[in-house]
């Protein structure tokens, strides 16, 4: 009994203290807002935003509401984070493995890259890529075509516009391909377990993924019209490309800076993971006749991943949060559009900042939930 009270009382006091502190802040904010005639409420979200945004994944202009402007910013943040996470993982894994290469040149280039990029503040790198890009890239009228009909210019990367007919049939064909690949994989696994025979799953999968969409073109009535960008003159020296899909230089610079920066940390996680698997594992695997590729895939990587995943999750979270530095170079992310322009136009600082904080918290929790699920999946199954 006595012991129970001893454990209970400090917790109760801590809880009370936290409630009191929060209560005090809320009360204080309320008093101050009353004094200055500021009202609190989320009704403004329904009002017309009356400002435009440079780049949006959903249909939006100033006649839409602040709530929609919020989603524009949110989606742009998610877009940068998503591309950044994929790119930084790819670079990180390659560099991490390269650091363990026996080749002197590869090993040291990778080490130099890691030390260089992780030791320069990210904001500086974002400015560097953005203004370096602005200085180095040609004006639209001077741009030369890349890969036939894409143009990298100071105003953005113009790619051809795809106009689809029967897009849904095409998407279904891809879905069908993926499902059949999954079925074949489980069938191949069964055969291997029962008969020890290995089917060329990779080639069959690639074949299916290519064949089915092609079939949809041939017999499904799918039609793709590609509109290549054509130079259009706005003034004596002002040009753009039309009609085209344009990736703004702000997005490109931001993705580049975030990926190159975060990849250095992921590379170190990967290196640590691989070095964390004891040498005996590799030797034992080799001694039972596995090929080097099989050793890596079946023995080393599954164990290394257990070490790699948790710290890499942190890096994904960092990248997502760092994407808020976008505001510095005019990429319309959540912070620029919502916590920037919308906050200024409405003056609702507390409401907007609280929504923004909650949003970043939710994104981070979602990413870490996903990564924890994956971590659990690859963890040692104890029976």
């Amino acid at each position, binding site marked *: 009994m006595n012991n129970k009270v001893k454990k209970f009382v400090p917790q109760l006091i801590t809880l009370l203290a936290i409630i009191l502190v929060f209560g005090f802040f809320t009360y204080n904010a309320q008093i101050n807002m009353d*004094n*200055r005639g500021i009202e609190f409420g989320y009704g403004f979200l329904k009002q017309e935003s*009356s400002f*435009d945004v440079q780049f949006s994944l959903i249909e939006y202009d*100033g006649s839409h509401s602040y709530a929609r402007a919020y989603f524009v910013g949110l989606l742009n943040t998610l877009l940068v984070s998503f591309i950044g996470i994929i790119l930084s993982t790819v670079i990180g894994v390659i560099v991490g493995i390269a650091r363990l290469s026996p080749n002197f040149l590869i090993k040291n280039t990778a080490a130099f890259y890691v030390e260089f990029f992780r030791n320069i503040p990210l904001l500086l790198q974002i400015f560097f890529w953005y203004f370096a890009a602005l200085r180095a890239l040609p004006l639209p009228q001077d741009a030369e075509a890349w890969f036939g009909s894409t143009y990298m210019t*100071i105003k953005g990367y113009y790619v051809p516009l795809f106009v689809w007919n029967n897009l849904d049939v095409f998407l279904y064909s891809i879905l069908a391909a993926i499902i059949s690949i999954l079925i074949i994989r489980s069938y191949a696994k069964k055969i291997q377990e029962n008969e020890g025979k290995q089917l060329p799953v990779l080639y069959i999968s690639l074949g299916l993924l290519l064949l089915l969409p092609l079939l949809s073109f041939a017999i499904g009535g799918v039609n793709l019209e590609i509109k290549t960008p054509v130079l259009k003159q706005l003034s004596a020296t002002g040009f753009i490309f039309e009609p085209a899909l344009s990736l703004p230089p702000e997005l490109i610079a931001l993705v580049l800076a975030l990926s190159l920066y975060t990849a250095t940390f992921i590379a170190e996680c990967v290196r640590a993971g691989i070095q964390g698997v004891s040498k005996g594992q590799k030797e034992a695997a080799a001694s039972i006749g596995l090929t080097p590729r099989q050793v890596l895939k079946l023995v080393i990587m599954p164990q290394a991943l257990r070490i790699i995943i948790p710290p890499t999750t942190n890096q994904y979270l960092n990248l997502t949060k760092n994407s808020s530095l976008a505001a*510095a170079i005019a990429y319309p992310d959540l912070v620029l559009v919502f916590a920037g322009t919308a906050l200024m136009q409405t*003056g609702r600082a507390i409401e907007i900042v609280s929504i923004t904080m909650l949003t970043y918290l939710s994104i981070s929790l979602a990413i870490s939930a996903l990564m924890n699920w994956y971590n659990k999946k690859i963890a040692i199954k104890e029976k």
Partner: protein
Amino acid sequence: MFKYLKQLTSLVAVVAVLFTFTTETMAAKKSKTLKNTQKKGFVRCGVSQGLPGFSNADASGNWTGVDVDVCRAVAAAVLGDANKVKFTPLSAKERFTALTSGEIDILSRNTTWTLSRDADIGLTFVGVNFYDGQGFMVRKSSGITSTSQFKNGISACTNIGTTTELNMRDFFNSRGISYEPVAFEKADEVVAAYDNGRCDTYTTDKSGLAAQRTKMKNPDEHIVLPETISKEPLGPVVRQGDSVWEDIVRWSLNTMIEAEEYGITSANADSMKTSENPAIKRLVGAEGELGAAFGLDNEWNLRIIKQVGNYGESYKRNIADTGILPDRGPNQLWTKGGILYVPPAR
């Protein structure tokens, strides 16, 4: 000797109490901001992060500009020294929060007076120290000489969190022109992006365009188009709810403008004390009790004129002589064809 010690201490105490009562006037008691300012010994003033002519710091950290002069005028009136100002550079986005949260007491940062800002978010605009309007800057080589030559797909660089963003939309929308807004948080990045060719045009208040043009690699390659697409009355802002402080800032600005009207300058202010004109005598503290209502002495306005100068002097020093906008345009006195007109100080 010790016999009278008790009486002596109580006498000192009574005198001290009386003294505090007399120095702390009713106005000062009513105005928390004034009291805090006098206690701290400096005016806390929010300015821009660097806009030549309005608020700009030189290499040694000295702030100059017409917006800066408003804060200096208040410091001269309230503290007796125009240099007792602490300047806080703020981005467009931060400025109102800094003011409403009490980090600064005057926001003098080329801020447009609008209904929603005045009524909605706990701010009070005290006057106009610069009548401005939004315009566009383009490269001379583009051959554009009027906004009517703008075409679909034009990209426009600007700042976020300003009325500029809203006016720009109204302008392009009403003309049915599709455009790409590229909005940065800080003005320096806007200039750099436009200067490098990211945008076809740079839009903000015309005074801002004229000032920022001086920061370009080659200012002569750019022109400001003649059209003005909006009204932008810029002026100092205070927090809502302290009417005495509001009055002090308002009448500090008005004093500068009225001083110009009556030809009182920093050089001749002292000699104007013996003027025949009672309006002039009131403005230099030689007649009337104009400071009493604010809880200030009678020479508060004389100090403003002597230390900061009248509006014309401030304009000439900061905007005309620096080559930003030599022509005063609407910012001329009403007696000389402009629209500067302030209520009489009496």
